[in-house]
């Protein structure tokens, strides 16, 4: 994966004497101890990570954990005290004012929690704000804004004013404004936090859908783990200005680095975190490649196996069917010993991206383990009641 933004040893100290605080930090003092001693506040400390091209990188933390400061250092709305922010190979922190403005116009745009729309401008004018500022022609402004508004489904409201729109629609305008500049990097600061829950999930889904059609590199600030899991490819968790863990949603949930991280998902619905592919087990059942063995050999092998069910795949790994000792024996004894006759009829495989909540219903209704297939019909493993219970138990 291509690194789009590289953050190296980034610090932000608020207060009159940052040097002193930096020295104390290097000695290993805590944020509180430094505030005691120097009356300076550590905003962000020792941030060191990369954001990959096309991913949704969620920064999570409680208020005051430094997540807003961190994201504002990426476009230097807040000047870093020390460290580097490298975007496409160039260090933002060393740029002149002019170069910085250019980067803000062409490379990074931003979406705000309280929308920050201009009330005296129409929706279309608001969406075109970035282009207007960078001196694009009137027709280009209109065209790009219109396209961005179509993307967020607000084209019919182009001539309305922001105060005529609902909260969700206002944030769509905020999103359109960020999309209209065609900047590859989007910074989203608690972008959906001010919306009511229904609209919020709707916007999250929309963002995920948008990522599938034209992938931006998104840095998304959130304090809501459900949101982070829904939209995030990776999540960074911050505490006291420091990043305590970075990982995929699954990693964060299954292997939390400390109690602070764990505290985030009290009450999180794990059946939404995982999908069938994440928990499918490959070792549980015997797997036969259809072309390699005949029915009788398979039957003999299966009798030795601890399970009486087996999965049949073909050479490409594609799933063909599920057999039991009994169905194999019956097919082998029949007049036409073909694999197809041995397959169990009532087994319906599960797609790997199916949410656990749905898998749960299917598994409970079925007596046998359910095979899990990816989008190319390749066999990924099986889920059964034991695996499900184990997963649900691990995280509660």
């Amino acid at each position, binding site marked *: 994966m291509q690194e789009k933004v590289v953050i190296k040893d980034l610090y932000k100290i608020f207060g009159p004497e940052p040097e002193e605080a930096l020295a104390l930090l290097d000695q290993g003092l805590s944020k509180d101890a430094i505030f005691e001693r120097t009356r300076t506040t550590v905003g962000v400390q020792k941030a060191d990570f990369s954001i990959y091209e096309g991913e949704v990188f969620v920064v999570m933390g409680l208020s005051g954990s430094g997540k807003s400061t961190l994201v504002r250092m990426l476009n230097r709305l807040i000047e870093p005290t020390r460290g580097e922010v490298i975007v496409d190979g160039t260090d933002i922190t060393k740029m002149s004012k002019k170069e910085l403005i250019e980067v803000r116009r062409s490379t990074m745009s931003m979406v705000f929690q309280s929308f*920050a729309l201009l009330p005296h401008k129409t929706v279309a004018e608001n969406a075109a704000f970035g282009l207007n500022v960078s001196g694009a022609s009137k027709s280009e402004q209109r065209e790009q804004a219109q396209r961005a508004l179509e993307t967020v489904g607000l084209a019919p409201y182009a001539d309305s*004013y922001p105060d005529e729109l609902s909260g969700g629609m206002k944030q769509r305008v905020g999103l359109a404004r960020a999309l209209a500049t065609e900047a590859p990097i989007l910074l989203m600061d608690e972008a959906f936090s001010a919306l009511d829950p229904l609209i919020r999930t709707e916007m999250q889904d929309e963002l995920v859908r948008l990522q599938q059609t034209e992938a931006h590199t998104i840095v998304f600030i959130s304090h809501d783990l459900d949101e982070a899991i829904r939209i995030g490819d990776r999540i960074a968790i911050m505490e006291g200005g420091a990043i305590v863990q970075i990982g995929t949603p699954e990693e964060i949930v299954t292997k939390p680095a400390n109690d602070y991280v764990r505290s985030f998902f009290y009450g999180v619905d794990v059946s939404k975190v995982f999908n069938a592919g994440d928990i499918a087990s490959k070792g549980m059942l015997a797997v036969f490649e259809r072309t390699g063995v005949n029915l009788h050999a398979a039957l003999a092998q299966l009798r030795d196996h601890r399970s009486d069910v087996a999965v049949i795949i073909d050479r490409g790994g594609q799933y063909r069917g599920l057999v039991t000792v009994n169905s194999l024996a019956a097919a082998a004894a029949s007049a036409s010993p073909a694999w197809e006759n041995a397959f169990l009829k009532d087994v319906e495989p599960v797609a790997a991206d199916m949410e656990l909540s749905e898998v749960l219903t299917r598994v409970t209704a079925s007596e046998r383990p359910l095979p899990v297939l990816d989008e190319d019909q390749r066999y990924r493993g099986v889920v059964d009641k034991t695996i499900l219970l184990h997963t649900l138990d691990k995280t509660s």
Partner: protein
Amino acid sequence: MANGMPEFRIPIGDWVADGVDWIQINLTGMLDAISEALELVIDSFEGGLQAVPPLLLAAIIVLVATWRVGWRFGLFSIAAMVLLFGMGIWPETISTLALVIASSLVALMIGIPIGIAMARHDPVEAVVRPVLDFMQTMPPFVYLIPAAIFFGLGKVPGSIATLIFAMPPAVRLTNLGIRQVSEEHVEAGKAFGCTSHQLLFKVQLPLAMPSIMAGINQTIMLALSMVVIASMIGAGGLGNTVLTGIQRLDVGLGFEGGLGVVLLAILLDRITQSFGRVGRGASTSLSARLRNAFDQWKASQADV
């Protein structure tokens, strides 16, 4: 001394008088230039307003009042016009109006940029704020003395005293309005690549507009009250009518002049306030209403 106090005196009055003398001797050229520029502005306003036939001007005022504020206020403005004509103080009213407009205009041209500078640079605010406090607490009559010394008697010193007295609210409310623009709006401006100039004109000033308009309204109101006082150094207009009333102990004349000032004040106040709301409310709903009407019309056409 009899009460035992030692002889102690700081001659501030002398210093100020010396300073005034120095300015009068050394800066005559500058004073003359200011005087002539201001005279030109005042004369062109007064000349312009007096060139319009009184009835036409009155009709325009009534129309503007009705359009900006509403039909009730339109009725009030008709009554006000009738009273002003009836009391025979129309020329004085126009003279006062011209002086108020000219003084306010100059006050705003100086005050708003100062307010902007204050909002953008904390040191400027630290310097200007106490000066504004000083200007606002100094009794207005005191401005008349240096104005009269530097510029003699007449409309020019009157308008100078007026614009100095009326300027502080414009400065203060411009500063306040810009500082009250939400942090996220400013961040949004910067995040999309505004230069500081663009940030000011595309984000801060438009969002500060209601506050700035309130400042403009205040400035105009203060200018009106000062113009009356400035009649003591020959500014003329309605203030002169009041002053004559006082000098002759003519209650009737004084009341007529006073009533004229009140009517003018109400008209100016309500009309300038209505522009404070133009920011979006009024224009938005108007354009929205027009659009709705148009859509309905289109729909009805489609039905036919």
